[in-house]
């Protein structure tokens, strides 16, 4: 059983179709990169997987013990967050809100989970520091730690390396691969950094409103390399 199974998902806003009959599945331990131009519907597809937008038709089924509200999400940063007064500890702990149920406050288990994830992403040393004083790469690591607090098995990353310098980009990819390989976290990443994203991916999907391609990295390389060669020839 797949963690997430999408069948013929169509999403439309005010008459414009953003995602057209897309089928996709994410297995345990998978590393899927969704590529596409701006406006190709890849972010919308991701928001649908998170339950933030409702598909017009088709179905999204969560399985293998994954609950809809237990997907670790790394959203694109908003302008408001850049000068937000919050310590790293507070940000990471806020990922545990979905585990609170009817409780009003965090308990020991929540704090322990936050602690473990801060250690995992090597941000424990910044715990008392303000989020807004960190570098872009450090901020992403903090948000990853928060996302891990909300999930046990799956991360959805929305353009995680936007605005990072090459060094920080490489480091972040390493961290994500580590989470995937060593900790068995399934990763779905929306990106337009083709080369970087493909370095570690197992599967690739290419969106252009509909699904242009869906297969393994090797198949992707073969097909798109061919296209490039043909186009040149």
């Amino acid at each position: 059983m797949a963690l997430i199974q999408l069948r013929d998902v169509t999403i439309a806003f005010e008459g414009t179709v953003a995602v057209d009959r897309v089928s996709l599945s994410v297995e345990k331990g998978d590393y899927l990169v969704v590529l596409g131009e701006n406006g190709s519907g890849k972010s919308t597809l991701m928001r649908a997987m998170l339950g933030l937008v409702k598909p017009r038709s088709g179905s999204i089924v969560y399985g293998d013990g994954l609950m809809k509200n237990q997907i670790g999400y790394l959203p694109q940063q908003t302008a408001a967050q850049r000068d937000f007064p919050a310590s790293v500890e507070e940000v990471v702990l806020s990922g545990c809100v979905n585990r609170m149920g009817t409780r009003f406050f965090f308990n020991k288990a929540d704090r322990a989970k936050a602690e473990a994830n801060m250690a995992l992403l090597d941000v424990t040393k910044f715990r008392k520091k303000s989020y807004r004083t960190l570098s872009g790469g450090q901020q992403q690591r903090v948000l990853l730690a928060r996302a891990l607090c909300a999930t046990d098995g799956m991360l959805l990353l929305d353009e995680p390396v936007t605005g990072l310098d090459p060094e920080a980009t490489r480091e972040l990819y390493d961290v994500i691969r580590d989470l995937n390989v060593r900790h068995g976290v399934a990763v779905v990443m929306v990106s337009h950094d083709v080369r970087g994203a493909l370095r570690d991916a197992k599967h690739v999907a290419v969106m252009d409103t509909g699904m242009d391609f869906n297969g393994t990295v090797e198949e992707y390389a073969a097909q798109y390399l061919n296209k490039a060669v043909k186009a040149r020839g």
Partner: protein
Amino acid sequence: MADLLSRWTKKPGRRGTAVLWALLILVVVWLLCHIRDIGWMISEMGGYLSYKFIRRALLVGALVSLCAALLGVSLVLKRYSMIGDGLSHVGFGALTVAMALGFVTADSLPAFLPAAVRGGVAAVCASVAESPLPFTLVVVVLCAFLLLRLSGQSRMRGDSAIALISTSALALGVVVTSMTSGMNVDVYNYMFGSILAMSASDVWLSVILSLVVLTLFILYYPRIFAVTFDEAFARATGTRAKLYNRLIALLTAVTVVIGMRMMGTLLISSLIIFPALSAMRVFDNFRAVTVSAAVISVSCFLVGMMLSCVYSIPTGAGIVGVNLVVFLVFSCVGVAKG
């Protein structure tokens, strides 16, 4: 000497500490120089405390300042601070309409209605005009939800929508006033605030509502933080962000209505915005910002109230003045901290 000082202040952390100490020493020296005046002010204030309406105003004011500051942190960070301002204008419109209802009599209603209906309507109108606070509260709460909805829509930008509604409400209030009572002392008081405006029943309502606001804020603090910091993430992980946005808007509406009689329509939003902004200059984690905003807000209120009693300044303006001074001082400290 200057060389030593400059070398010592090279480290940014130290520079901040140095400026903090310098400011603290300045303040202490200034206070010592004016110790006689301050003693006089406090003794004057002691005299005022024997008046019942001053004690009422102190109680309600302190509670409202506390609530406003707590909500303000979230509102300012979510870029919703204009909602507070918009709501106060709506509150003014609703208040004037409520007061105007006092002019409705059974005879002034259309004659085709049965006498019993006319009598009933007139009685309801009279009771609304008698204690306009509950009526205003309902209107402002409804408007808060409307503003929240509008600011989420992209078709008409949220801030323009808020400006539209708030100025319309203000205009409605002014028109209604000029058609009924005219610009009298009551209306002036609603605009600029008066500590005399509180009746005993208003005080009870205010105290209960403030306690509700405080309790809800504390109980939902972790969720309010999550929704304030990152609404998309909170929603994706199953937090009902819309519900908490509504909770914040509701609590803000309540706070605005309770506070506007004392602070005035034109000044109440400062109670929401100033303490949060001041606290954010200096502190950089959410808990510290929230706690210090609350402390700043209540202390500014008490000092402003004292100044207003002793020097006969309108209360609202006095409190805003003190808040402004605190904001400037905190900004200096923030710059020094780097």
